[in-house]
C-alpha cells in the first residue's frame, strides 16, 4: 500500500510537510514499513485543489484523505493497517486522483477548461520527454522551420489573445511592433514576478509546466527576430526557478534553445533573472531596470518597450500565462483559440480563487464565464452559511465587485466597467463579515509599502490615503475625509508615473462607490457594521442572554471582565482592548 502526501509549495504552507513527516514516523513506530510506503509528491501531481490540503492519496484504493492533521497520523496508519474503512470525515472522492482532470461531473471541475494548465499534473515538469510527448515543442518547431515571422504574428492576431498580465493588451500588436523595430539586438522577456497578494497562477504554470513558457518565448523570439531572452522570476519562487533551470538545460540539450535551434540557423538564448522581492518590479520598465542591474523603478513612457526596452533595445515583454498559451495557438491555430470566449476577450483565463469560498484553488475558465459560476459552482459558495458581500478582482490594483454584478461575464471590458480590473487573475471572495474600510486599508497599506518612492503622488499620496483610512478605522474620521479620499485618489490616478501608482487608489474608490454607507457608518455613527475595526467596537454583556458560564472571564487576556458564579459577567469598557476574544468565546451570543 502506498500513501502519497501532496507536498507542493502551496500544501506546505498549510502544513503538509509536517503531516508527511508525522506519517513516516508513525509507520516506522508501528513497524509497518513493509506494508505501507509513505512518499511525498510535489507540484507536478498537484490537482490544484488547495481546499483539500494537507491531503493524501492512498493507492491502490484511490482514496483521498483531506485536511489531514499531524494528530490524525496514529489513527490513520492504524486504520490503513487494519484495512478498515477510511475515517469517514476525511474522505472526499472514491475516484482516482489521476482521473479527476477528465472528470467533468463535479461542480469544481465541470465548468473549467484546461488549456493553459493542460499539462499540469499530467506530466513530470522535470521531464522534457513527457512534455514533448504531449505535443510539446511542436509549436516552436513549426514556427521556426515552417513559418515566417509575419505568419506567426498573423496566427497570434487571429487568436486575438490579449496579455494575461492584467492590462489585456493584444499580444500581436506588441509583437508586430517588436518585429518592426530596427535593431541588431532585441529581447524577449517573460514577466514572472507575480506579486499580487493571493495570486499564484504563474507559479503553478512555472512549476507544473515550465516548458510551455520556454516554448512560447522561443516562438515570440522567432516572430520578432530576437536572440536573447530573460525570464524575470521572483526569488520567492525557488521551485519555479529550479524547474525553469532544469527546463532550459534540457531544451539546450535537445537543441531547442541556444545556437542553431533544430538546425534552422536560428539562435535563441534564455536566462533566468531573479527579482529581489519588490512588487513594483512587476511593472515592465521597472522590471527591465532591475535586469539591467539598476534599482527597479519605472520610467516614463514613451518610449515603449518595443522601441527602447531592456538595455535600450526593442523588447517584447509578456507574462507567464500569455507565453504558456502561445504553443497551442501555433499548433492548433488561432481560429481554434478564438473559438472560445467573448467578443473581445478570447480563450481561457486562470484565476486564483481564494478568500471566503469553500473551494479555494486555481481555476481556469473560458472567458465569458460568469463570476457567479466561478464563485458559487466552482468555488462551492460561501462557507459557514454566511452571505456573499463582494469579490476583489485584480489584487491591490483592482477593485471589489458587489453582488449586483455577479452575473457579469469575465472579460476585460466587462470587468473594467464594474470598476475593477481583470488583473493577473487574483480573485478574493469576501463574505458579509468583511469590513470594506478594513479591506481598503489593507490594500492601501500594501501599496504604500510597495510604492517604489520615485514619483510624488504615489510615494506621498498613498501615505496620506492610508493616514485617512487609518483615521476612519480608528473612529477619528470626519465627513470631509470621504471627499479627501476621492479627490486625493483622483489626483494620484491622474498624476502618477506608472500603472502601480495610477491604479493604487482603485480598491479605495471601488469600495467607496459600492459601500459608501459602510464608510459613513465608521465616520458618523462611529460603528463598524462588520465588527472588524476594533477601535469602533464596544463590548457589553446582555444580562438576559448571559448564561453565567464564565468563558469570557476566563479567556479575557486583559482581565477586564468581572464574573462570579451564577451572575452575569460585566466588561470594564474603559480598560477593554477590543480584542474580540470574549465575543468569539461566548456561546450564547450574549456579548455584543
Amino acid at each position, binding site marked *: 500500500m502506498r500513501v502519497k502526501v501532496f507536498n507542493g509549495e502551496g500544501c506546505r504552507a498549510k502544513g503538509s510537510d509536517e503531516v508527511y513527516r508525522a506519517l513516516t514516523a508513525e509507520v516506522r513506530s508501528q513497524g509497518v514499513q513493509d506494508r505501507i510506503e509513505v512518499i511525498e509528491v510535489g507540484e507536478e501531481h498537484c490537482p490544484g485543489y488547495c481546499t483539500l490540503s494537507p491531503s493524501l492519496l492512498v493507492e491502490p484504493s484511490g482514496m483521498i484523505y483531506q485536511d489531514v492533521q499531524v494528530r490524525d497520523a496514529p489513527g490513520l496508519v492504524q486504520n490503513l493497517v487494519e484495512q478498515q474503512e477510511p475515517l469517514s470525515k476525511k474522505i472526499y472522492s472514491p475516484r482516482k486522483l489521476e482521473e479527476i482532470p477528465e472528470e467533468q461531473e463535479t461542480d469544481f471541475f465541470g465548468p473549467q477548461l484546461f488549456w493553459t494548465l493542460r499539462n499540469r499534473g499530467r506530466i513530470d515538469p522535470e521531464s522534457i520527454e513527457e512534455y514533448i510527448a504531449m505535443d510539446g515543442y511542436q509549436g516552436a518547431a513549426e514556427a521556426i522551420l515552417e513559418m515566417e515571422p509575419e505568419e506567426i504574428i498573423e496566427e497570434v492576431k487571429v487568436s486575438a489573445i490579449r496579455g494575461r498580465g492584467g492590462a489585456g493588451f493584444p499580444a500581436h500588436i506588441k509583437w508586430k511592433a517588436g518585429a518592426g523595430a530596427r535593431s541588431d539586438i532585441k529581447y524577449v522577456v517573460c514577466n514572472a514576478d507575480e506579486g499580487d497578494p493571493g495570486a499564484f497562477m504563474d507559479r503553478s504554470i512555472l512549476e507544473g509546466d515550465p516548458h510551455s513558457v520556454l516554448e512560447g518565448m522561443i516562438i515570440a523570439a522567432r516572430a520578432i527576430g530576437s536572440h536573447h531572452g530573460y525570464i524575470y522570476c521572483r526569488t520567492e519562487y525557488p521551485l519555479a526557478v529550479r524547474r525553469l533551470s532544469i527546463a532550459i538545460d534540457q531544451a539546450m540539450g535537445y537543441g531547442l534553445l541556444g545556437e542553431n535551434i533544430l538546425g534552422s540557423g536560428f539562435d535563441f538564448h534564455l536566462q533566468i533573472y531573479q527579482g529581489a522581492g519588490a512588487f513594483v518590479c512587476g511593472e515592465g520598465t521597472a522590471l527591465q531596470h532591475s535586469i539591467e542591474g539598476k534599482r527597479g523603478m519605472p520610467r*516614463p513612457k514613451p518610449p515603449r518597450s518595443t522601441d527602447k526596452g531592456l538595455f535600450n533595445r526593442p523588447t517584447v515583454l509578456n507574462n507567464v500565462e500569455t507565453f504558456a498559451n502561445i504553443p497551442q495557438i501555433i499548433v492548433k491555430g488561432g481560429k481554434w483559440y478564438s473559438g472560445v470566449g467573448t467578443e473581445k476577450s478570447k480563450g481561457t483565463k486562470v484565476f486564483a480563487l481564494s478568500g471566503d469560498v469553500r473551494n479555494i484553488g486555481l481555476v481556469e475558465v473560458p472567458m465569458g464565464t460568469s463570476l457567479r459560476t466561478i464563485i458559487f459552482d466552482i468555488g462551492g459558495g460561501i462557507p459557514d452559511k454566511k452571505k456573499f458581500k463582494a469579490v476583489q478582482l485584480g489584487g491591490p490594483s483592482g477593485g471589489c465587485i458587489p453582488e449586483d454584478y455577479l452575473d457579469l461575464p469575465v472579460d476585460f471590458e466587462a470587468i473594467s466597467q464594474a470598476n475593477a480590473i481583470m488583473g493577473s487573475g487574483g480573485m478574493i471572495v469576501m463574505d458579509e463579515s468583511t469590513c470594506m474600510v478594513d479591506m481598503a486599508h489593507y490594500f492601501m497599506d500594501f501599496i504604500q509599502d510597495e510604492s*517604489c518612492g520615485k*514619483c510624488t503622488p504615489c*510615494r506621498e*499620496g498613498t501615505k496620506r490615503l492610508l493616514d485617512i483610512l487609518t483615521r476612519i478605522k480608528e473612529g477619528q474620521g470626519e465627513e470631509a475625509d470621504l471627499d479627501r479620499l476621492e479627490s486625493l485618489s483622483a489626483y494620484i490616478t491622474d498624476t502618477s508615473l506608472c500603472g502601480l501608482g495610477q491604479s493604487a487608489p482603485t480598491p479605495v474608490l471601488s469600495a467607496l462607490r459600492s459601500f459608501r454607507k459602510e464608510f459613513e457608518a465608521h465616520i458618523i455613527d462611529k460603528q463598524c457594521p462588520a465588527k472588524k475595526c476594533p477601535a469602533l467596537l464596544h463590548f457589553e454583556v446582555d444580562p438576559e442572554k448571559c448564561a453565567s458560564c464564565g468563558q469570557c472571564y476566563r479567556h479575557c487576556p486583559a482581565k477586564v471582565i468581572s464574573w462570579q458564579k451564577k451572575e452575569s459577567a460585566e466588561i470594564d469598557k474603559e480598560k477593554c482592548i477590543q480584542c474580540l476574544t470574549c465575543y468569539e468565546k461566548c456561546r450564547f451570543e450574549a456579548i455584543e
Partner: protein
Amino acid sequence: MPEQQTLTMNKQSLVFQEGETILDVARRNGVFIPTICHMEGLTPSGACRLCVVEDESAGKLVTACSTPARRNMALQTESKRVVSSRRNTLELLLTSGNHDCLLCPANGECTLQDLAFRYQVAGTSYPRQVQPYNLEAVNPLIIRDFSKCILCGRCVRACQEVQVNNAISIGYRGKAGKIVAAGDRPLKDSDCVFCGECVQACPTGALVPKDARFRPRTWQTEQVRTTCPYCGVGCQMFLHVRDNEIHRVTGVEHAPPNEGSLCVKGRFGFEFVSSPERLKTPLIKENGGLREASWDEALDVCVSGFKTAIDRHGPESVGVVSSARATNEENYLIQKFTRTVLGTNNIDHCARLCHSSTVSGLGQVFGSGAMTNSIADIEKAEVILVTGSNTTESHPVLSIRVKRAVTQRGARLIVVDPRRIPLVDFAHVWLRQNLGSDIAWINAMMQVIIEEGLLDQDFIDRRSMGFEELKEALSGYTPEAVQAFTGIEPEDLRTAARLYAGAGAANILYAMGITQHVCGTDNVKSLANLAMLCGHIGREGGGVNPLRGQNNVQGACDMGALPNLYPGYQQVSDPAIRDKMAGAWGVDSLPEEQGLTATEMFPRALQGDLRTMYIVGENPVLSDADSTHVRQALEGLDFLAVQDIFLTETARYADVVLPACTFAEKEGTFTNTERRVQRVRKALEPPGSSLPDSEIVIRLAKRFGSSWSCRDSSDIMAEVASLTPQYGGIEYCRLEEEGLHWPCWDLQHPGTPILHCDEFACGLGRFQPVQSSPPAEVIDEDYPLWLTTGRVLYQYHTGTMTRKSRGLNALSRERLVEIAPEDAGTYGLEDGDEVIVSSRRGSIQARVGFSRAAVPGTVFIPFHYAEAAANVLTNPRTDPVSGIPEFKACAVQLARVG
C-alpha cells in the same frame, strides 16, 4: 533639416521638430512649465510630476519633460486640472518634511519655495511628517539634511549620470526612501569624491555646503563669473561674493567646457583667497629675516638687484621664471619685460616640468604642440586610449567626459597605466606597462596594426610623409619581443591595437606619465605616430590630446614665456621675427641667443653662471626634481626676487618678496588645455597692498625707464592679438559667454576646436620613428624599488592653495607613500608605518599606505607635501630635446623608522 510640424499649446499654434519634448517646445516659446526633477541633457526621469500638462486630445495629464511633441496635440499648461495636480504635488512635498524657509540656507534659491509661492500652496493640508533620518554633517564639506529632501533624485542623477561617480543612489523603498551612499554610510566612508555636483543639483536645502548656515544666502551675494584657478580644464564658475569675500562657488550651467560641473577643488577650494597667510605687503630680507616694506622700497631693491647683475655679469646672468598660474596678459608682460628690459631670453615657466616634451614632440610630427581636439569632443570618440593620466584625480571634470562616453555612449576605453587608477574600473582593456616602457608598447601596437593591415593607408598617403621609415623602424617590435620589457601580455596588446585601429574615431588622452621621462619627447612622438597611422587626427572624436596640468600653462606657452619662442610660437632664432618684435615693442634689438630653460637655470646657478633670478608664482623648491640642489642653487644666488600670493618654500630664499593677487582679484584671460581662451574677472579687492602680477611688472618696467603705459588688461590683450597670429581674433568682448579656441586668426574667425582637419600645421604630418630606451636611473641592489610621483584628488601641486583649505586638508591630510601589499610584506611593513624613503639624492620620511592601485615593486608618492617632498628624491636628468626631468621613474630604497 527634420520636418516641421505643429501642435497647439494654450490655444496657440507652435511649430516643433521631431524629437522635441513638450517641455522643449514650451521653453523655446517662453511658456512656463515648472520642473524639479528634470535635468537638461539627461534622459527624463518623470519623478516629481510637476511638469504635467493637460493633453486635451488624449484627455489626460502627461509629463512635459518626457512626452514627445506630437502633431496636432492640444495642450493646456495651466488648466484647472493641471494647476490642481501641481498644487496637490506641492502640498504633498511641503508637508513631507521640515520645509521651514526661515532657517533654511537655500532660502531664495529653492525651487520648491518658488513653486509654492507661484501656486500659493502653504503646506497646511496635512500634518507635517517627521523625517526618520538624522542630519549628516560628519564630513568637512557637505551637509545632508534628509528632512528637506523631497526624493526628486536630482542628486543621484548628478552623481551617476553627470559626473559618473556612482557614489549615491536611492535606498529603501517608498516613503522610507533615502539617498544613500555605500549601503547607507556617511559620505566620507563612501566612494564620494566631494565634487559637490549633488549640492548644485539639489532644488531644496537638503544638500548644502558645510558652512552655508554661517554665510550669506545666494540672493545676498553678487555672482562673478570667472575661470577656475586649478587644473587646465578651465571650468567656468561663479564666485558668490559679499563683503569682499567669496562665500560659495557654483559651476556655470550651459557653458563649456564644464557645463556646470566642478570638482572638489574648484567648488570647495577657495579658502586660500581669504587666508590670513596671504602676503599683504612687500618684504625685504634683512639680517637673515624678512621685514615689511613699501612698494617703492621693494621695487628699488629689485631694480638695483637686476641692474647690478646685468652690469657685472651681463643680461645672461639673469633668469626669469614666469607662472602658469598667472594670466595670459601677465605672462605676455613678463616675457616682454625679460626680453626688452632685462635683455635676455632666459625666461621659462613650469611647462618645462610638465608638457615641454609635448610641445617639442607634437610640434615635430603635427607642427603644433597642443591638444588637437576639444574636451566636449571626447564624448564623440568610439575608442578612448588613456595613458599616463590619472584623469579622475588630476583632471576630474574632463574625466567626466571619458566616463560618460563609456557608460552612456558605448565608447570603448583602453587604459595603459601601471597603477590601478580609478578609470581602470571603466576600462575594457587595461594594459599595465612597466615604468618607462612606453615607446616599446606603442611601437608594438603600431607593428600589430601594420602587420594586420589595420592602418589608414589613404590618410597616410594623402596627409603624411615618412611612413616607410617608420615601418622599417618598427620591425622587431612584436608584442612578444617587447613583452619582457613592457610586462604586457602580447594578446592584450593586440586586442588594444585592434580596438584602437578599428574605431571610426579614437581619441588619445595622455599626461605626465608620458611626458615626464628622459625620453618624453620620443614618447609623445610615438603616440602621434600611432594616431596618424590610423588616421585618427583632424576628425571629431579623434586626436592626440595632452592634458595640461595648470590653469594657464597652455596660455603661458602661447604667450612666449619660453626661452626659444616669442608669443605665438614664433622663433627667437628667426631674424625677421626678431625685427618684427623689436619694432612692435619699441626697442632697437632683442637678444638673439636662445635662453635657458627652467631646468637648466638651477644647475647654471650652482655653476655660478646665473646670478640673479626673478620667480613669479612658482615654487621650484617643491616642484622641481632633486630639490636639494634647487635649494642650494637659490641660496647661492646674488639676488632673488619672488612674486607670489603666499610666502612659499621658494619665497623664503628671496631677497625681495612681492605680494601678488589671486585670480579672484584681477582681470585677464586663461587659456585652458583645449586652447580655449577664457575670461578671468575681478571679484574682490586684493588684501593689503598686494597687486596683480601685471601691475607689478609694469611698475618694475617703469623703474627701468620703460615707457609702458599703465593700461587695463583688455588693452594688453589687444597688443597680444596684434603680435600673436593664433590670437589675432581674440578680443574681450568676444569672450563674454564662452571662450574661443585658438587658432583664431581674425575678428571674424570662429575659433578652431579641432586642429589639423584639412592639413597639419606643418603641411604634411611627419612620421618620427623612435626607438625604445630605459629610464635614466634603474633599480639595483642598493635602490631596489621604483619611485613614481603624481597628484591626488584633494591636493594641487605644491599645495600653496589647497593646503590652505581646511576642507581639502581634512580629506587628504597625510603625505602617504603608496605601496603594494606584496612589497609591504617584503619590508615587514604595516599599513600606516613611518618609513624613510631614500634615493641617491636625498631622503624623506612619510607614512606607508597600502593601496590596491599600487604596482608591486613601485612606490608612489604625491608631490604636494613640503614636509615629505617627493622631489627631494626624483632624478633631475632631463629629456635632451625638451629639458623635462624624469619625475616618473627613479630608484629608491625603503626603511622602516624605529
